[in-house]
């Protein structure tokens, strides 16, 4: 009996500790640090396809990807039939772009603004000091917590006061943010509300590592969607540089052979 309670106790402690560790470790002058997105996922077709599925099912209700054509998804290994049958909910043709289902007027009424287009979200949110846009989105989608002072009931440590609710809450479950009052490092007379970590309230259908992987898939898809040619670009670059290297060596020796004559 005692061993079981010790086991449960240590499991609960490790759960809380790991949640605290997951949370941003310190607040920089421009907000908490971002977690790193594993870029190896970008060449994993299964991950990209799962990401596309999550995107179409969860994000496209409100967000558009107006510069992304449905049939470009063939590049990540889907057939037009698979795209049409599983990913298009608006009745659009497979050659059309991914427009949102939500009417902009309704969006303004319900959320106070039109949800931004997500085609280029992974490129536009990069920050030289903090990380890539993919890092940001990976952190953002895992940083929601319950906040009854907000209209949606949700807040986010990566984007305080965000108007978007936690769309993936059923997958992740609900968590609350723990804050502690500490002395302001710049002014001993003031106290600051410092974020200390998350604490689970209810469980979701996925456990923590499953949820992280699902979000990683979604972020991989968003990163790919922001520049579908990126994998090919890098691959082509290797060949181009090899060719230019050879060319330059030959040009160098040709130059040397001409300049032999100059005394």
């Amino acid at each position, binding site marked *: 009996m005692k061993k079981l309670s010790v086991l449960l106790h240590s499991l609960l402690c490790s759960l809380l500790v790991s949640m605290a560790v997951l949370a941003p470790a310190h607040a920089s002058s421009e907000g908490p640090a971002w977690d790193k997105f594993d870029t190896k996922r970008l060449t994993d077709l299964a991950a990209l396809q799962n990401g596309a599925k999550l995107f179409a099912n969860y994000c496209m209700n409100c967000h558009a990807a107006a510069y992304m*054509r449905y049939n470009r998804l063939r590049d990540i290994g889907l057939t037009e039939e698979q795209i049409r049958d599983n990913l298009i909910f608006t009745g659009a043709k497979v050659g059309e772009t991914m427009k949102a289902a939500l009417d902009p007027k309704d969006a303004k009424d319900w959320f106070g603004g039109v949800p931004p287009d997500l085609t280029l979200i992974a490129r536009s949110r990069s920050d030289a000091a903090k990380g890539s846009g993919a890092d940001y989105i990976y952190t953002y989608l895992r940083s929601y917590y319950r906040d009854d002072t907000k209209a949606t009931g949700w807040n986010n440590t990566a984007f305080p006061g965000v108007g978007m609710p936690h769309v993936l809450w059923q997958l992740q479950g609900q968590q609350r943010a723990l804050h502690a009052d500490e002395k302001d490092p710049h002014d001993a007379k003031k106290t600051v509300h410092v974020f200390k970590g998350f604490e689970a309230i209810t469980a979701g259908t996925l456990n923590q590592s499953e949820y992280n992987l699902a979000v990683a898939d979604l972020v991989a898809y968003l990163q790919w969607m922001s520049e579908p040619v990126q994998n090919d670009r890098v691959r082509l670059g290797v060949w181009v540089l090899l060719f230019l290297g050879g060319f330059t060596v030959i040009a160098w020796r040709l130059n040397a052979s001409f300049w032999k004559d100059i005394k």
Partner: protein
Amino acid sequence: MAEFKEAPAGASTGEKLTVWAQNRFPTAFDAYRVHMSEYYAPKNFNFWYFFGALAMLVLVIQIVTGIFLVMHYKPDAAKAFESVEYIMRDVPWGWLVRYMHSTGASAFFVVVYLHMFRGMIYGSYKSPRELVWIFGCAIFLCLMAEAFMGYLLPWGQMSYWGAQVIINLFAAIPFIGPDLSLLIRGDYVVGDATLNRFFSFHVIAVPLVLLGLVVAHLLALHDVGSNNPDGIEIKAKRDPKTGIPLDGIPFHPYYTVHDIMGVGVFLMIFSAVLFFAPEGGGYFLEYNNFIPADPLKTPAHIAPVWYFTPYYSMLRAVTDTMVTVFAVLVGAAGVLATLFGGFKGLWKWAPLVVAVVAAALLKTFDAKFWGVVVMGMAVMILFPLPWLDRSPVRSIRYRPSWNRWLYGMFVLNFVVLGYYGVKPVTDLGTLISQGGTLFYFGFFLLMPWWSRIGEFKAVPDRVVFHAH
């Protein structure tokens, strides 16, 4: 017809064709001789001499990629952003053309700054090459205008707001400012009208002027002959029989093959950026520019593209305090010129009067206007460089050794100014930018004095060349 040359008997078809063309377009054939096969360039060109040819290469890259981009780009505020994404996604190889153009824009400035620096250290602007330098400065001005207007075209957040900030600067000019801004913008705010006229200037007007200036730059250079790292006039020592400079070698084939090697290295660096890091860490393609322009949402930090940041830094450094500093400096300069200027009679007082008037003007107009003036002057001060430099020796190799430190500091200063131009305004940043601005202008304005002092080394009569 009587002056036409005849092809020799038994000539091949190729030879006969050549003679036919030579009879009707001798200019082309003369041009090949004058500018390539019989243009005698100094044999001691070093690494710094690649950048002129590379600048020409990048100009060609920008024009050719520009032509293909214009086939698909839509210069309409409602369609511009989307058309760029269309090029990136749907046009076959559109992404490559777009990245070549964006990388090329940054590459152009890297190459041009290095090219200008070569001119500065080897005294290439000194007589008889003053006009080559002046055409070059005009090219630099046009290049800045071209880049500024090109940056508006993608119609992203940074495009829009960067243009808004810079055009507003023109509004700070007294009397004509607001009307001038209206003319530039084509409307009361940056909008579709601005995009259309910037498109016209970026695609046609400025490129035509640039091409004309580049031709003038090269023709003026070839008329007087190239300088070299030793600053020696190679035409002073010629072969008595042929008249060819002893230290000269025909540009073609020696420098054409040499430049091909340079092009190879350049393209490797260019391709590495293009294929592996086209955003350049957010400096070549700014992250904010992947958000469509929104006149209602001002970005937290508005900064120009990296190649303008040293000048932007100088603009922001001109605060009210700085204007007072300028007034004091101008007054001091007036006093010194009156006491030591060597002017005679009533003219002795002229510098002091000018200084007092200038100081009064400084305190009358807004610091914002003087910031614009300083930014403009930072570029314009390059034009009179041939007359500011009073060194008896052309090249830095034979100037006093401390000159190297001074030029090194100039470069470091320019880079530091650029760094602070990228960052948002801080008190320390402003202070450093102010010091940097004073150093930048001091370098040029005090040059008539510092370029003459010190121990100069003996200039050899033949170039320093080590056989390859």
